[in-house]
C-alpha cells in the first residue's frame, strides 16, 4: 500500500470505529442521548445543592459554572476509563488481524468529543451567550482531545501487560476529579499552590472553556497555555512511545 492509500485506510477505519462507538451507545437505549445530558445535569444539581446551600461558595452563577466543568470532566473520565481496558476488551480483533490499533483509542475519544460538542451546543443555546470569547472553544477542545488521547494510549498500552492498571486508573480518576477546579474555582486556592494545580492540564482547559462559554475572568492565558502544551506534549510522547513499543506484541499477552 502506498502512503496516500494507507492514510485513507486509517481515516476510514478510525471513522467507522467512531460511528460504531456512537451507535452502540444508542442501540439499546432509546433515550441514549438524553442519558448523556441527564447525567451531568443530575451531577450538577446534587453537587450544586451541596455547595450552594450547605457550604456556601461565593461563585457567580454557580450552577452554570459547575455544568461546564462537569461536561468537560465527563468527557475526560469517560474517554479515559473506557480506553484503558480497550485492547483487552477488543482482543478478538487483536488476536486475529493486523490493523492500526491506536484507532481503537482515538475512536473512543472522538465519540465522546461528539457528545461533548452537543453538550456545548445546548449549553450555548440555554445561556444565549455569544461573545467573541467563544472561539477559545476550539483550541480548548483540541488541547483536551490531544491530552486525552495521549494519556489513554499510555495507560491502555500498559494495561495489556499489567491488568491492574485498570483499577489504578479508576482510583486515580476519583482523586483527579478533586484535583481539577470543577466544583471550586482557582482563586479559592492559596496562591502558592496554584502552580501545582496548573500542572494538571485539565485545570487550564476547564478555565479556558469557562472563559469561552460564560466569560469568567482569566489571566495569564498564554503562560498557562504554554504550560498546558508542555505537560500534554510530554504525556503524549510518552504514551506514543510506550504504545509503539508494546502494541506489536499485544497478542502475546491476551
Amino acid at each position: 500500500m502506498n502512503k496516500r492509500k494507507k492514510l485513507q485506510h486509517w481515516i476510514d477505519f478510525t471513522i467507522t470505529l467512531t460511528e460504531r462507538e456512537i451507535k452502540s451507545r444508542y442501540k439499546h437505549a432509546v433515550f441514549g442521548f438524553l442519558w448523556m445530558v441527564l447525567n451531568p445535569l443530575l451531577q450538577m444539581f446534587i453537587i450544586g445543592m451541596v455547595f450552594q446551600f450547605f457550604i456556601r461558595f461565593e461563585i457567580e452563577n454557580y450552577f452554570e459554572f459547575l455544568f461546564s466543568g462537569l461536561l468537560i470532566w465527563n468527557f475526560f473520565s469517560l474517554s479515559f476509563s473506557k480506553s484503558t481496558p480497550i485492547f483487552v476488551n477488543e482482543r478478538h480483533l487483536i488476536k486475529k488481524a493486523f490493523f492500526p490499533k491506536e484507532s481503537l483509542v482515538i475512536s473512543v475519544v472522538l465519540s465522546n468529543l461528539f457528545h461533548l460538542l452537543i453538550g456545548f451546543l445546548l449549553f450555548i443555546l440555554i445561556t444565549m451567550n455569544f461573545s467573541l470569547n467563544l472561539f477559545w472553544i476550539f483550541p480548548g477542545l483540541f488541547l483536551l482531545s490531544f491530552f486525552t488521547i495521549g494519556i489513554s494510549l499510555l495507560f491502555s498500552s500498559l494495561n495489556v501487560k499489567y491488568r491492574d492498571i485498570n483499577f489504578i486508573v479508576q482510583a486515580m480518576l476519583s482523586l483527579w476529579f478533586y484535583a481539577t477546579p470543577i466544583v471550586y474555582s482557582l482563586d479559592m486556592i492559596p496562591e502558592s499552590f496554584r502552580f501545582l494545580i496548573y500542572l494538571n492540564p485539565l485545570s487550564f482547559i476547564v478555565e479556558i472553556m469557562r472563559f469561552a462559554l460564560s466569560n469568567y475572568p482569566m489571566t495569564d492565558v498564554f503562560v498557562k497555555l504554554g504550560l498546558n502544551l508542555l505537560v500534554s506534549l510530554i504525556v503524549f510522547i510518552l504514551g506514543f512511545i510506550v504504545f509503539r513499543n508494546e502494541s506489536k506484541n499485544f497478542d502475546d499477552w491476551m
Partner: protein
Amino acid sequence: MRKKVAISINKIVKEYVLHHQKPTFFGTIFGIEDRKKFNALKKVSLKIYKGEKVGIIGSNGSGKTTLLKITAGITSQTSGTIKTTGKVVSLIELGAGFHQELTGRENIFLNGLVIGMDKEEIHKKFDSIVEFSGLGDFINSPLYTYSSGMGLRLGFSIAVHSNPDILILDEEIAVGDEKFREKAMNKINQFSKEGKTIILVSHWLDYIKTNCNRIVWLEKGKIKADGKKEVIEIYRDFIKKNSKSNSGHYV
C-alpha cells in the same frame, strides 16, 4: 525463470513469557509473579516463493500458529527478520473479529477495514461479497442470529474479496455445507492459478498432501523437514514412533 520471494524469514526467534494468571503491575514490581520464558520459535529460516502452495504441519505447540501470526503481522518476532511482499490476509479464526450486535452489512465494513480494505473498495465489492457468502436477506440481521457456518461463510467471502497476495488458511475452510466448500476450494484454486501464495496449516494430512506442492514440518520451534509430499510420510512415522514410546510410560 527466477522465482520471486514472497516471504523471507531469517533466523526468527519468538520468546513468550509464560504467565499463569493475569499479569499485574503490583505483582511485577514486588516480584510476586514468576515470569518464565519460553521459546516458541528457535531460529527458524524459511523462504516461500510467489505462487507456492505451502502446507505447514506439526504437532500442537510446535510453533505453527506463532510463525503464521508473525507472518501476518499480528505479533512480532523477538529477534530475526521477516520480509513479506504484498498484502497478507489470514483466514485463521475466520470471522472471529465479528461483532455479534452489528448486522452482517455493518460487519462487512468493519471486518473489511480490519483486514486492510478501504471504504471505496468495500462499497465496490459489497454485492459480490454478499452473493458469494450466500447469506441473502440475512445480511441485514444482527450476527447473533447467524449460525456458525453462516459467520464463517461471511468471513471467508470478505477475506477473498480483499485481493490478498498471500493467503493464510487453516482447515476451518472445510466447514460449511458441501456447496460452499466446493465454492471455497474453487476460489482458492483460482488464487493459486493467479500466482498468489497460499499457506495452509492443518492436522488433516491427506488434505495437505493433495493440495500443497511444498510441505514444511515444524517441531518444537524448529523446522524438521521441508520438501514435497514425502514429508508427510516422515512425519507419520515420527508420530507413530512417538506415540509408542509415550504409551510405554503408561503401561
